[in-house]
């Protein structure tokens, strides 16, 4: 039985806890969150112990795996501490806010001989896996021009850390990092990045438009938005023999509309796309398997590093107004 300690009981921490609970041969025994009420709520049904500080959990809890679901600026400190304590580490994306931090995290995990994986969960999303499979099979011929969008409302987190761009990195580092990783997975390394966005302005909404030129010639466009309402993604890839297009808004096999008695305003219709196994469950199962069977995770530290390299290049391009060559 592998024992897990989760750092952070916010949106992702509670989601991860729920995933471990569905897997055999692994149990969450400890959860740390400054907001102990939150931690308790997640911990209780699992019989896990609650810590107030992430540090405390790493020092005191007897765990094999530390799962870091803290706000991004804390990733480095706690990944390094966990690795030094000899724990295998799963860390939510993005790896870190700087290349230096990211490299240090990877090196420390290597030095400690622990498994390390970053949650680039798109690689476990059914639709993205299916898209990659078609592209790899030549369904669109040689890929040429690709468009990815990820639009959401402003996310809310502990002490509103998402809105502080020096903490979250804005949409480039926090949101479309998913698309950067997925595109790199499909098309290889990026040569040039050009971006415009609001991240370094006083405009109150986060919005970025990024153009990537891949080494293999593919031109890709990525839109990241916290200026929308709700959440949706789109993906399009065109090549020499065809085009594929995905839109999460039209891929919902079920919509539920509830009219509440006595309410004047029409209730919203909530679209859903249920799958038997959530992508997060598939991601975490893979990591647990890697630890149990001493295998290398299919998402490497370098993958996570290259993803933030693209995001940071986009931010640099935004700042300087120039393209950035990687």
């Amino acid at each position: 039985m592998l024992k897990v300690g989760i750092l952070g009981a916010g949106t992702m921490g509670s989601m991860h806890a729920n995933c471990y609970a569905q897997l055999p041969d692994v149990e969450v025994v400890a959860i740390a969150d400054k907001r102990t009420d939150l931690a308790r709520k997640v911990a209780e049904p699992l019989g896990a112990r609650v810590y107030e500080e992430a540090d405390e959990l790493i020092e005191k809890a007897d765990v094999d795996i530390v799962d870091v679901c803290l706000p991004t600026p804390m990733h480095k400190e706690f990944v390094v501490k966990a690795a030094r304590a000899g724990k295998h580490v799963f860390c939510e994306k993005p790896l870190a806010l700087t290349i230096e931090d990211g490299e240090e995290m990877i090196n420390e995990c290597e030095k400690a001989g622990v498994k390390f994986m970053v949650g680039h969960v798109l690689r476990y999303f059914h639709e993205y896996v299916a898209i990659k499979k078609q592209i790899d099979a030549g369904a669109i011929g040689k890929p040429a021009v690709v468009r990815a969008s990820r639009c959401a409302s402003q996310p809310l987190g502990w002490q509103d850390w998402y809105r502080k761009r020096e903490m979250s990195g804005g949409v480039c580092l926090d949101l479309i990092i998913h698309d950067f990783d997925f595109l790199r997975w499909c098309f290889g390394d990026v040569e040039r990045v050009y971006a415009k966005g609001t991240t370094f302005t006083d405009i109150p909404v986060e919005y970025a438009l990024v153009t990537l030129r891949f080494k293999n010639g593919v031109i890709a466009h990525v839109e990241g938005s916290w200026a929308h309402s709700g959440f949706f993604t789109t993906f399009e890839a065109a090549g020499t023999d065809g085009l594929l297009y995905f839109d999460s808004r039209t891929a919902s096999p079920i919509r539920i509309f509830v009219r509440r008695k006595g309410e004047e305003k029409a209730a919203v219709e909530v679209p859903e796309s249920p799958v038997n196994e959530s992508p997060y469950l598939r991601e975490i199962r893979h990591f647990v398997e890697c630890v149990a069977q001493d295998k290398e995770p299919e998402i490497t530290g370098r993958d996570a590093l290259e993803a933030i390299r693209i995001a940071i290049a986009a931010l640099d391009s935004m700042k300087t107004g120039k393209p950035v060559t990687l």
Partner: protein
Amino acid sequence: MVKVGMISFAHMHAYSYASCLKELPNAEIVAIYNEDTSIADDLVKRFGGKFFDDYHKLLEEDLDAVIVCSANADHKEHVVAAAEAGKHVLCEKPIATTIEDAEAMIEACRKAGVKFGIAFPCRYIPAVRRAKEAIERGEIGRIVGIKGTNHGTMPGGWFVVKEKSGGGAVMDHTVHVVDLWRWFMKSEVVEVYAEADTLIHDIEVDDVGMLTLLFDNGVFATLDTSWSRPKAFPTWGDVTMEIVGEEGVISLDAFAQDFDLYNNKVMKAQWIYWGDNMDMGLISDFIDSVEKDRPFMITGEDGLRALEVVLAAYKSAETHQPVRLR
């Protein structure tokens, strides 16, 4: 009755404009010129008027206006000759393939005192007008950024002969949307960055274009001009934009008024458009402006400003640097 001459059917839009003229009660096609005389009988049968194999001869006729739909590089010769013959002119987009040509056309029309309009029919799409109205009323607050597309199918013919077209997808598909954005925001493009290449078809001109624009009001925008719709695609292409403002988002898909058709003889899905005919809006407005001798909304300068963006995009794609316009 406004008497109209058609100078060339090289651009397929001529067929649509001629059909509109036929329907209008206050216009009449009295003369047709086309380089390819093999379709002379067919054109006369369909649209009426007298056929000329020399456009100089056509211009000697008693005409109020001419519509020029020759290949891009021939616009200048035809428009200048029409102006010198004292005819009002409506010219297919793009205005020309070089700044010098465009300026010479504007000057010739000014000197002759004739109207010079550019065919940007997208200004006549009701949904586009609704978007403009929403922007002007401040419904989404201050605009932050815009993501646009004007996708198409590779047209072949003279469009892919650089000498005749001046360029591929970027030349063909930049100007419509740039014109709309200038019109919406009363703002000029100050900087252009572009990735462009020939990645899809075996042709001598670009078929993929990804532009990033900066407007003098601070708004950034991207525009995908690619001929990325394969032959199997259910329609010719699109004009879309996501206009992100501080207080909301306008999502525009200009040709979304359609339905799906599946036919065993065609063996591909088809999107059948049922919205208003934008070409009718354009042509009837131009004819009305000639009849009532009032200014026509879309001027040669509008054509020139849009062309500047195209040429800057080509320069940027070559140098991999943003190009300053003003």
